[in-house]
Structure formats: C-alpha cells, structure tokens
C-alpha cells in the first residue's frame, strides 16, 4: 500500500515539513524568503551547484555551524552571525572573502515571519561584507528536533599574495593587539536569558571584520597571526596561539579593554571576561616594529576604535599564557574547560 503525504493544510504562518521536501512548498519558500534576501546571478540559476571562477592562487575555505539561542539577541540574530563568523574566519587567514554557502535546518512550526527576518539579516550582512551567498540548502525537521533554526555557512576566499599568517608563526617579542572591548557578545546574550534579570545597554559586537583586516594588512603585511576570539574567548585563542607557536604569552591586565557595564555584569556573575565569546573582535600578533601601524589602522575603523596592545609573546614558559596584574603579580590564564557558568563562590 502506498502512502502519500496529503497536501498540507495551508498554514501560511509557519514552517512545515513540506517546506524542506523539495516540492512546491520548498520552491515557494525559496521564492518568497531566500531569493529576495540573497539574490545574485549565481544563486538565481538555482542549479544543484554554484559554478564559480576563482583567480589563480591560494584559496581559503572554512565552515561553521550556528546553533545559538536565543535566535534574536541584543545587537543581532543568528542570520547575520552566520555571515560574520564565517567571513571573519576567512579574513583572519589573510583571505578576501568571496562566496558563501548557507544551509538551513528549520524546526517544523517555526514562524515564517521570524525566518524572513533572519534570512533578510543574513542577506544584508553578506551584502555589507561584500560576499555572495551562491548556494544553499533547506531541510525541515520535526518539532522538537532542533532549536528553531540551525544554520551552516561555508566560505571561500582568496588569500592575498605575500600574506602568510598562521597560529604557528608567533615569535618572542611579537606584540599582541586586541581590536576592542572583550565579552560584549557573550554577556549580552547571557543577560538576555530570561530569569537572569540583568539589563545592559551593551549589545553583541557581531560584525564582519574583513574590511578592517584588509586595511591592517595594507599597512603591515608582515602580521604573524590573527584569530577571532569566539567560543572560549580571548583565553582560548591566546592559549591556542601560545601552544601552536611554542611561545609563552604575557598579558597586562590593566591594558585589556572591557566595557564598564560588561565588567559589572562579569563581576556579579563571577565570570572572567577573558573566557567569554566575542563575535566582532580580532587578536593580532605582530612584530614589535609593526605594532603602531597596526594599532592606527585598527583605530581608524569603527570596529577597532578601542584597539589596544594587551601583551606580548615571550620565550619563557612556552605554551602558557600568563596575566600580569596591576601589582606585578601573575596568574595563569587557563584554556577554558567548557561552558563558562555564573557562580556564587
């Protein structure tokens, strides 16, 4: 006996299983939600693959999956985050981001109006960053099998001639520069969590940094390493850099920029701002003779106006990150073990 899925009730407000099935509803979703937001000649061909021409040379390729909750948070939503994160991952490798793919997993029952907002944000973020979403996919899972929306974006970029950045390239003497205030994103998202009853005016710093990074590489192509301190915060990134390069890192506590409101929230929750996620910041390791130029270039950009030198790489204690306090004492900045949770102790 053959069972056929009966024609779904016309519930025009919400995502249904059929939206992911490849049939009429899928095409309707494509036409009404995705194409208007993401339209470009390659995507408009609606083929099973995007066919691209890349200039000769090295290519950077990255992927990331976004499962953040809440989907809408102060300063952004999952749609734009899905662009910023992947664009930044390419940019910190010295690549010019060009093309993105976007794969969506939608939960049955998810409000279409919210999906519209998310995809529209994604499209706007892509346009602003100068990238095209050239291919994508949408699947729908039963209610309860995902948290509203999951998005995967993969990105391709062209690595500039003469740029060779890597987490293994830090040398003792390199200055470590942070492009702005720490912990804005993670704390904004945490405070938006119901029940925590905390309010802040600081929002997520979610942003595409490729233009800013381009400007930096223009003035000083000899950067050794760049990384964006997302999950695990600056602590994770700095530990990764120290380990990969086999150098020690010493940070100056007084030099690390943190917004006063974020600082207050971190003190109250007992969270170290160094361990909190950022979505619009970059850490740059640069030989000392390039530090001033890089700092200037960052500060001229709206996303880098609070840039500061926060420390340096050293030959001592390889692989270990140490914080120097205002009093001259030291503590180790550990690789965060997992989720940073508010504590009462």
């Amino acid at each position: 006996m053959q069972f056929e899925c009966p024609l779904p009730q016309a519930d025009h407000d919400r995502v249904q299983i059929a939206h992911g099935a490849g049939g009429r509803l899928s095409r309707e979703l494509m036409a009404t939600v995705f194409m208007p937001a993401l339209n470009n000649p390659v995507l408009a061909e609606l083929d099973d693959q995007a066919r691209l021409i890349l200039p000769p040379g090295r290519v950077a390729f990255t992927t990331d999956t976004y499962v953040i909750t809440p989907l809408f948070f102060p300063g952004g939503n999952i749609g734009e985050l899905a662009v910023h994160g992947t664009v930044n991952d390419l940019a910190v490798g010295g690549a010019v981001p060009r093309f993105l793919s976007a794969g969506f997993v939608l939960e049955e029952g998810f409000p279409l109006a919210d999906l519209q907002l998310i995809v529209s944000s994604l499209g706007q973020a892509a346009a602003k960053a100068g990238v095209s979403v050239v291919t994508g996919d949408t699947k729908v899972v039963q209610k309860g099998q995902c948290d509203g929306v999951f998005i995967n974006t993969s990105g391709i970029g062209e690595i500039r001639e003469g740029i060779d950045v890597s987490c293994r390239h830090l040398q003792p003497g390199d200055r470590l520069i942070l492009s702005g205030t720490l912990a804005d994103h993670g704390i904004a998202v945490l405070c938006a969590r119901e029940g925590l009853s905390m309010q802040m005016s600081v929002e997520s710093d979610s942003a595409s940094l490729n233009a800013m990074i381009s400007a930096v590489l223009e003035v000083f192509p000899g950067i050794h390493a760049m990384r964006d301190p997302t999950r695990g915060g600056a602590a994770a990134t700095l530990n990764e850099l120290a380990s990969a390069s086999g150098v020690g890192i010493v940070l100056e506590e007084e030099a690390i920029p943190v917004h006063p409101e974020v600082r207050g929230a971190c003190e109250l929750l007992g969270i170290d701002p160094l361990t909190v996620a950022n979505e619009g910041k970059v850490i740059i390791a640069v030989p000392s003779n390039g530090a001033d130029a890089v700092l200037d270039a960052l500060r001229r950009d709206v996303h880098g106006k609070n840039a500061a030198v926060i420390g340096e790489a050293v030959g001592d204690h390889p692989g270990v990150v140490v914080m120097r306090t205002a009093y001259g004492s030291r503590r180790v900045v550990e690789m965060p073990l997992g989720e940073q949770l508010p504590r009462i102790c």
Partner: protein
Amino acid sequence: MKYIDEYRNPDLVRLLLEQIDNAVSRPWTIMEICGGQTHAIVRHGLDQLLPSSIRLVHGPGCPVCVTPLEMIDRAHTIAAMPGVIFTTFGDMLRVPGSHQDFFSVRSRGADVRFVFSPLEALQIARDNPRHEVVFLAVGFETTAPGNAMAIKQAATEGLGNFSALSSQVLVPPAMRAILSSPDNLVQGFLAAGHVCTITGLCDYFPVAETYGVPIVPAGFEPVDLLNAVLKVVEMLEAGETGVVNAYERVVSRDGNAGALRVMDDVFEIADRTWRGIGVIARSGLRIREKYAAFDAERKFDVGHIEPKESSLCMSGDVLRGILQPEACPAFGKQCTPLSPLGAPMVSGEGACAAYYRYQRAWGA
C-alpha cells in the same frame, strides 16, 4: 566601579604590603575559609606579593568542595527522575559524583538548569506547575538566607511542586574542627567577610578565646584582604587573640538580624559530613519539619546510595591546611583539572586547582 576600584588601588596595595613587611618578624601560617577569598587571592596573585614568611593557606571555604559525595549522588539521582526540573548554581554543574556529573545526567535527557538565584528556581516552579522543581541549596551562611527565603516563599504561595535539597554548612564549627586537630598548623584566620555580614561576630569570639587565635573578618578586594592580613600579623606578633573587624563597611557585630530570623524559621542546625573531612557536629543546616513538604531529601526516595570516593584523593588534608596540594602524590598526575579525583581540583577556587594553575606559570 564604586566600592571595588578604590579597593584595588595599586598604591594602597603597595602601602599595605610595606606595612606587613615591617610588622612581620617570623613565619606565620594564616588560613582563609572562603572560596571567594581563595579566588581573589589567586586572581590578584596576593600570596606572591606577601613576604615569604607568611604562609596563606586555603581552608574548606568552598561549598562545592565540601558538599559530601552522598549528597552529590543524591542530587544526580533526583535530577535523572522523570518529571523533575533540577536547578542549581553554576558552580555545582561540573562536580563529579561517584559515577557522573550534571552534564552527563543532562546528556541522558534530564532537565538540568543553572540559576543565578534561588528566586529563579521559584519562578521556574511557577511556570511549570506539572513538573517537580528541585533546587540544590548549597552554600555557607551568606547563601542560606536567600535559600531560606525561597523555601518560605514557596510555602506562602503554596508552590507544592518546589523543593530544596539542603547542603548548607556553617563556618565556625569548621574552624573549631581545624583548630582542635592535633596536627593543626594554622595560627590565625581571615574570616569570610560576607558570611560575617549575615551572622555577625558573636560566634567567633569564643573560638578565638578557646583556641587562642586572632580572627579577622576580611573583604574580597586586594586592599581589604591585605588590610586583614596586616591586622592578623600585628596580633600574632603581639601575642594577641580575639576578633578584629577589617571589613567594617558591611560587617557589623550583630550581623543581619532579619536574615538570621528567616534562617532560623526555615532551618535547624544539624550534624553534617564535610567531604574529605568527615562529620563535624552541628555544622550544617537542615530544613525544619514545618517545611518538610519543601524538603527534597524527604520528598524523593533515592534508594540506597553508595558513594565511591577515590582512594588516592587527599582533599581532606588539603582542606584542613595540613597538606599543600603539590605534596599530594596524585597532584598533577592522576589528578588534574581535566580529570579531577576530588572537589578541590574541580572547583574554580579549590585549593588544588589554584595551585595547579600557579605552578604551570613557573614550571614544576
């Protein structure tokens, strides 16, 4: 940040360090019993700045570290029961029980949520009338008033689906237990400033007198902590004993009467097991009979619990200040923050975790 930044002033820190240096003439061992103070000392590296003749020892001041294994296992068992929403402070989520931690309980389908306040847990109970909402009430006397208020409020509102699992402990009995141990090395105490904010100082005078030690309630910022160390050192050098308040902007002799009243209404004093130390008489708080309906220990039958402690873990000696963490044979080998054998290596301000971090900066 007002009332924080002034107490982190590097010039004042330097001034106090000089005064301590001038005051000290021989070695002294001073203990703080407060996880928050341990954390502050490590965060600001204060023990590195003090003269080497002063040994600052971290006592059993971390409620995470001293919650008995049996209680943690009980909490995990209740959390795994169907229909239960289990709520806890974030500190407890990673603490291993005999077989698992809350993350592994959650990964098997349990609804475990961290809360910042017991009032959040109450709200979850209001929002989920068909679920049993259990709150893990750990803490010292600082946290007990809030926990008490939540239970009292649940009773007032008739929130029959809310209950608390009480694992609360008191500081003065722990001090007595440490001081009366034959191998005790502690000569003076920094008392927990926020505990004293609630309880006042009355319980500490008899301890100071009986055991002949200085006890100085201390705050949590570098200036507060060093000021307190200075006062302890001055008293030790002069052979003085007693209680001297170094946190006067919030600690008063009588404490917070309203908080003590509500605590007394909801809780009664009971014997408690301290993980790694053993039973200390009259050192904990148990929910009174009149609030039995809100006591998760009475409400949920967890069957027989057989706690399995690591035979290698020497946290008891560490918590009493007798053993330095790095002297434990398992330290850094079988026992690391990633694979902890006992609570002092798990908790952010456990003594063993603190030493582990410090050591890594300078090599073994």
